[in-house]
């Protein structure tokens, strides 16, 4: 299961992912990200503190966010070790700012 909490402020868009992103839940993530208004010029921050699981479907969705907002600074924070491992393996740590 996945739940998503979005906090859209003046200068930044915070997206917290809670649970699992896989082929079943990824559409929910894509739809939520498509619904968000006025992203231009904002920093996008994905908080993955409570994300237990992600695979290529979810990583693909994050790459899609980068594709849609190529100029945005995208940060990915608070990753669990299994998640950050996948970011390293797939080179995503290079296109997102991870901490």
């Amino acid at each position, binding site marked *: 299961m996945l739940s998503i909490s979005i906090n859209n402020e003046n200068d930044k868009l915070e997206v917290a992912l809670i649970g699992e992103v*896989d082929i079943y839940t990824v559409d929910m993530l894509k739809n939520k990200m498509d619904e968000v208004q006025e992203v231009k010029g904002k920093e996008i921050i994905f908080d993955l503190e409570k994300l237990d699981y992600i695979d290529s479907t979810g990583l693909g969705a994050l790459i899609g966010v980068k594709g849609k907002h190529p100029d945005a600074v995208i940060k990915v924070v608070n990753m669990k070790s*299994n998640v950050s491992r996948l970011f390293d393996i*797939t080179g995503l740590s290079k*296109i997102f700012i991870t901490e």
Partner: protein
Amino acid sequence: MEVQTKEDAVKISLTLPGIPEFVSVARLTLSGIANRMGFDIDAIEDLKVAVSEACTNAMKHGCNIADDSYVVNYIVSGDRLIIDVCDSGRGFDLEAVESPDFDNPKENGLGLYIIKTLMDEVEVKSLENNGTIIRMIKQLEE
């Protein structure tokens, strides 16, 4: 109850429908088996990703119609865990699949690369229009 010797392989099979919400069942089963075998938490997380990638592919590329099913076999052979994911779809050639281009990340094409990175051995048996078996093996580290 008979005592299982190390040489005896035990097989656990799951038949899953080509419906996205049930891939998590393959992960849960994997966790149970890998945990029993003594894999540590990090290894179990890796195995979960690998089995999900293979199931996702079986569903996305292998199942022709929505109510197609695919099979996951977990084979415990001594301290090796062998996972076969079998579909009856169009098949593909592993050699012909390109590695991802890290300078130009794309939304697709990461799954097999991730599987190969996380597992010790990966083998694909596939015939055109005659399904795919992807076999993934992970050795229990002492």
